[in-house]
């Protein structure tokens, strides 16, 4: 019996290793080619690089304006996420604490909007935004708040429901107004869910392509996914540079994953449940 279970474990580990190799293979092949010259890639795509050089990276870094695009992506992602966290937690708090009809109806409207596909909104949205002169970065951030708040409100709503209201009531009796109560009592209680909601929004906004491509597709304003797409239009046959560019774009994601792994896993399961 014991021997059999060792055997079984051994087999499972082997299966796990093989599957893991299949999963990482595309990225490993990408990294391998990113250190090779174009000629080397064409001669033998699987061979290791002849001599180690960062040449492809230096060129890709410059030609895709990596640094400005990275800064743009960071700026847009961080600002949008912070605003989404603020307005959604405020809205969710009153939606939970006020048990009125308008509060119930509004919550239903916010959550049912999750079913509307982006394609249905995109053309009129661009129309409205260009009339408001908001086809720029602040406009994009505003749109992310509009899109992001429905999911975030649903998540905050589910969490706040389970917090007893006594503390808040005590604060009110002590003379706190709504803002003081919210920022000094409620926000500290929301720390855990804040991280989860933040991670969900960061992952979505960082990788988003279609919305920024409609709104800020101008030189100097582009985010990383936009830049990557343009870069491929120009260098589609130059796989030496292209592979280096792809690896460059994956680095920030990997750093984010390794530093926030705990919250990402939580975010995935929480976001999915709604």
């Amino acid at each position, binding site marked *: 019996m014991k021997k059999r279970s060792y055997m079984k474990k051994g087999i499972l580990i082997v299966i796990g290793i093989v599957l893991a190799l299949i999963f990482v293979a595309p990225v490993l092949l990408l990294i391998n080619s990113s250190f090779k010259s174009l000629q080397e890639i064409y001669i033998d795509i699987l061979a290791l690089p002849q001599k180690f050089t960062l040449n492809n990276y230096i060129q890709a870094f410059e030609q895709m304006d990596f640094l400005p695009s990275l800064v743009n992506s960071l700026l847009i992602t961080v600002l949008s996420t912070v605003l989404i966290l603020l307005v959604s937690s405020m809205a969710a708090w009153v939606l939970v604490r006020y048990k009125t009809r308008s509060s119930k109806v509004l919550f239903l409207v916010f959550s049912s909007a999750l079913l509307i596909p982006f394609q249905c909104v995109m053309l009129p949205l661009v129309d409205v935004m260009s009339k408001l002169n908001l086809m720029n970065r602040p406009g994009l951030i505003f749109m992310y708040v509009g899109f992001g708040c429905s999911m975030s409100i649903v998540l905050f709503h589910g969490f706040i429901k389970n917090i007893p209201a006594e503390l808040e009531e005590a604060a009110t009796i002590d003379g706190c107004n709504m803002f003081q109560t919210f920022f000094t009592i409620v926000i500290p209680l929301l720390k855990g869910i804040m991280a989860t909601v933040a991670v969900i929004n960061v992952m979505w906004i960082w990788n988003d392509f279609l919305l920024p491509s409609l709104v800020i597709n101008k030189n100097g304003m582009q985010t990383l*996914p936009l830049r990557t797409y343009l870069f491929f239009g120009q260098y589609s046959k130059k796989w030496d540079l*292209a592979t280096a560019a792809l690896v460059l774009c994956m680095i920030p994601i990997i750093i984010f994953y390794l530093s926030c792994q705990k919250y990402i896993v939580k975010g995935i399961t929480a976001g999915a449940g709604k």
Partner: protein
Amino acid sequence: MNRSKKGFWIFIFPALFAFTVVQVIPTLMGIGYSFTDWNGIGTTKNFVGLKNYITTLTDDALFRQAFVFTFLFSICAVISVNVIGFALALLVTQKIKGANLLRGIFFMPNLIGGILLGFTWQFIFVQVFEAVGETFNISWLQGWLTDQKTGFIGLLILVTWQLSGYMMMIYIAQIQNIPDSVLEAAKIDGATGWKRLKSIIFPLMMPAFTIGLFLSISNSFKLFDQNLSLTGGGPVNSTQMLALNIYNTAFGENRFGLAQSKAVIFMIVVMAISIIQLTVTKKREVEA
């Protein structure tokens, strides 16, 4: 607690304002525009009644092809993503060494955005497959993404690679929720292996299947970035999915009204499928 009506509206206003301007008004406008001949450039929008819908449904071979492609693709993707995701979840919840590392690796692709993924796999299919196929004389590895069949399978491999780790995470959470006592009792009653999986684990997994199916259906039905960057819908529009078809109708042909009518049909289909699926799987959920 002294709760003023004013306070309620002050707190909800910022979110409600952005939400209304960005989602509510455009959705309503979009439904309205679908009855016009708007071309996206000029300001004239003439009411044309149901003409766009009739054109879309009866006289648009590309839309029909995109619809069939999307539908078949979604069925295949939902099956492969969930079966593999569930298998991975079973694997990493066994008490084996390195299970956490495996979990991290399987989940990783899900964080990489669709555009990057598409180009990465384009490299694999067009460069690596081709080169390996030539070297070892394997004909089925050559010419990937040059016809509809390999485009379809390529897209399927990409999406499976991306999403199965995501489904795995959801299934892991549910598997860990199954009380050990239930599994012990089953063991004592002689239920092992497949039997245990079928009559104990599957029924208790239903809540997670509801979520897993919902997410994989809506993700594959609405697929855009991956479609755009892997095949661009080509060759000759043969791998174009619905979202890309709508995009091309608007920005390629400048027929915004027509595109909008497709988008409304798209929305109705997405909502109908999601609601049907949720009611069907919800019914089968049981308590442990």
